[in-house]
């Protein structure tokens, strides 16, 4: 650790260095943070989950009434406390599992496996939005505007879903595309502002979240706009049946699965994003700009247009999340809370998935499972779902600060990364 520190010192001093190397834009703190975060290993993700589970257990234990009661006579009968602790933790994670994957207490396989499909349903928009955030991370941008983009996308997809009468497959496609376009435009505004004026995307996306929220809220209480006709509630009409994503039950004819077509779309999106970054020339340019915009510019890559395109793509993925909300999950009309915090959870998902497409996919599955299981845990064990949120937050916290993780687990600083430190060490060596 001491080495890290001294090397860091030189990093800190380096930028203060040349009075003549002014004009060039130095790598911002946020891009350095991004690079550090993306270059740390999968091991850290795994360890972060482990730590989060441990902290979660601790919270379950200290908030459990049985444990509290037993702890009152701990010195008389310590065994009781220990038993209560194990019961609390066991009960919590058992119910989490039953709510998220498989519940053997129910009748019939179809009912037993339903929790898994619930997890996948919760995961669907998380993965889509997570991919959206991850895409911008790889280009060196932060898209905090998931909420706004999802709201706008939901409004667009929703409006198409109840305003038209079309045959099912066409209507589904049309409504979905409307959502994608809505999200893409909302995020595209940010890209254009960033490219043209240099406005920081974090500020702009956050501000556009408010704009989108109040815009949608206003439209939802305006008769003739998004408000359901004949009501005074701030709620939209339901989607026409022809625009609603078919569910797994529709396909199999059994059970009451809510898992819908959106999940297939999300798998396709994951493959597409993988292709984009690993095989396409556009993705190559995206990555080049994300890693070193200066070199990309010198090599004739138009950095502004990459920023715009990346935001548009990211917004479209957010749009997929929005579409799947209104066409798959909440098809009976939505309110201004239709984004369900997905835009922010997506940041967590992208972080946990290291911004790699399949990493995001599995991180989304994990978070979907935590969400589905969390509700069951609350219902059956009386454990507040907030504990799940705490666990999610701890995962982000630990992943966002790799040095902290390395300190906790005494891991060596990774070879070849983190980048800024390494460069300065090299420079110092190569003089």
């Amino acid at each position: 650790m001491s080495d890290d520190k001294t090397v860091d010192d030189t990093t800190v001093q380096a930028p203060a260095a040349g009075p003549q190397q002014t004009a060039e834009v130095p790598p911002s703190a946020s891009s350095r943070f991004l690079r550090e975060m993306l270059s740390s290993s999968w091991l850290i993700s795994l360890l972060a989950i482990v730590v989060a589970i441990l902290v979660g257990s601790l919270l379950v234990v200290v908030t459990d009434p049985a444990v509290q009661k037993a702890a009152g006579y701990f010195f008389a009968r310590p065994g009781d406390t220990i038993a209560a602790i194990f019961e609390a933790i066991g009960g919590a994670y058992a119910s989490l599992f039953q709510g998220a994957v498989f519940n053997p207490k129910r009748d019939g396989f179809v009912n037993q496996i339903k929790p898994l499909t619930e997890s996948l349903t919760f995961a669907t928009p998380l993965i889509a939005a997570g991919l959206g955030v991850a895409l911008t991370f790889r280009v060196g941008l932060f898209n905090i505007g998931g909420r706004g983009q999802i709201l706008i996308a939901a409004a667009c997809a929703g409006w198409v879903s109840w305003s038209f009468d079309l045959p099912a497959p066409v209507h589904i496609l049309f409504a979905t595309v409307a959502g994608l376009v809505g999200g893409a435009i909302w995020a595209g505004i940010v890209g254009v502002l960033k490219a043209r004026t240099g406005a920081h995307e974090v500020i702009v996306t956050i501000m556009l979240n408010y704009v989108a929220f109040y815009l949608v809220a206003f439209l939802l209480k305006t008769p003739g706009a998004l408000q359901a006709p004949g009501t005074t509630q701030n709620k939209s009409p339901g989607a026409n049946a022809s625009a609603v994503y078919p569910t797994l039950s529709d396909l199999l004819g059994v059970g009451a699965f809510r898992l819908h077509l959106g999940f297939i779309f999300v798998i396709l999106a994951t493959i597409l994003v993988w292709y984009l970054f690993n095989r396409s020339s556009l993705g190559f340019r995206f990555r080049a700009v994300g890693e070193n915009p200066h070199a990309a510019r010198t090599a004739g890559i138009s950095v502004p247009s990459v920023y715009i395109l990346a935001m548009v793509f990211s917004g479209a993925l957010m749009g997929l999340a929005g579409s799947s909300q209104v066409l798959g999950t909440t098809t009976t009309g939505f309110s201004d809370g239709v984004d369900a915090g997905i835009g922010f959870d997506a940041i967590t998902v992208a972080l946990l998935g290291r911004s790699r497409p399949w990493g995001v996919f599995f991180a989304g599955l994990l978070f979907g499972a935590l969400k589905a299981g969390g509700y069951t845990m609350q219902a059956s064990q009386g454990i507040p779902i907030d504990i799940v949120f705490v666990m999610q937050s701890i995962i982000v916290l630990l992943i966002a600060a790799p040095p902290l993780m390395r300190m906790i687990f005494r891991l060596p600083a990774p070879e070849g990364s983190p980048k800024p430190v390494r460069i300065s060490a090299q420079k110092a060596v190569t003089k």
Partner: protein
Amino acid sequence: MKLELRGITKRFGALVANDHIDLVVEPGEIHCLLGENGAGKSTLMNVLYGLYRAEEGEILLDDEVQRFSGPGDAMRAGIGMVHQHFMLVPVFTVAENVMLGHEQTKGAGVLDLAAARAKVREISNRFGFDIDPDAVVENLPVGVQQRVEIIKALSRDARVLVFDEPTAVLTPQETDELMAIMRQLKESGTSIVFITHKLREVREVADRITVIRLGKVVGEASPTASNTELASMMVGRAVELTISKAPANPGADAFVVTELSVIDQLNQYVVKDVSFTVRAGEILAIAGVQGNGQTELTEAILGIQPRTSGSITLDGTELLGRSVRRVLDAGLGFVPEDRTEDGLVAEFTIAENLMLDRSKGAPFVKAGTLQLKTLEAFAEEKLAEFDIRAQGIHTHAGRLSGGNQQKVVLARELSRDLRLFVASQPTRGLDVGSIEFVHTRIVQARDEGIPVIVVSTELDEVTALADRIAVMYRGGIVGIVPGDTPRDVLGLMMAGETTGAAA
């Protein structure tokens, strides 16, 4: 003060940057630390200055063992450092910069600027510096800024002064002045460690020379040793200091710059009314001290300077106002000044870096999809052709040495069909062996009939490569002279003197 380093060993992971280095600097001695880039000179000095902690070995000042846990300790012990990149706050005055870090206050936290001013004056007078304590640092010429650094070190009673590559940013005349200052300091009993890789300076000023190679002391040399001897000690083999190059066989005017001006973000002219012509098959070297508009000139050619006027034509086509993409497509090969920043994506593999400026269309992209097989074959070929020392084409560029990084950039730029080649500081920070290679390739490009522009602040490089030399000063061209113009004339031109120089 006598400085002694005993058995200093510093490792970075598997890399041994300093391997049991012993060094003795006697009081009142100028001790030169000579070595290639990457030899471990700066690491050693960072150990001395408390920035790094050595795994083994000890530092002795006047025969007492010292323990530094940071630069503060080193300063208190009497070690001062003049960094290659100045550690000055540009918007502060000289006095403020000098007091920074050990500000004296008179009660109630009010800065005692008067004391700082007096100190600056006192030291200035002692060495005849003539520095106004109230001048704002960013308005001072580079050579004067360096003196502020020296004053800063001396104001803390430094009795061992380390100069880390101090001449990189100076004109030849300023360098001479610095040498005089170093001698003066030496007279007053200060021990000086002078880090450099420029042989001429070493021989001029050093009392003793220690040569470091690959982290080890390979020997001592006397200042009377010849350049060739010193160079071969540094590199470990005999080196060609001058490349053999046939006389140029220039063709027609190919690249014409007419009255080019560039305005920067501060609304200042950084390039003003520059006109020159490069013929096919000739190397025009652009000499000048760093920061006299060379960077902006090359950036204007590339098309990344937003506010330009005038005209740049290549084979009759106007380049000014085109996007970088279209300038490159017109046949420009461009080696940027700062290869780690502008030339390479450190996190990309060698192969990916080799296609960085060809991410659209053939040969590496078909239907928007990367042609990985083509790229791999191409990368393997270039790895061999340019002798890039790496584990393979999938090694990240950031893990290569400077010389190999530059070879990657050259391999990329020279493998397109070029009609103009611009290399900015092509050998900055490279070892002698790589310099040889880079120079050979540049001359080769010339001999293929390509007009070549080499921008360099190193006079040695300019005179080695140039068929003609344009000297830049404060954004303008002072004159364009033949390639065999003597150094002292070039030196005067670099300082802005036009009289009798422009031939």
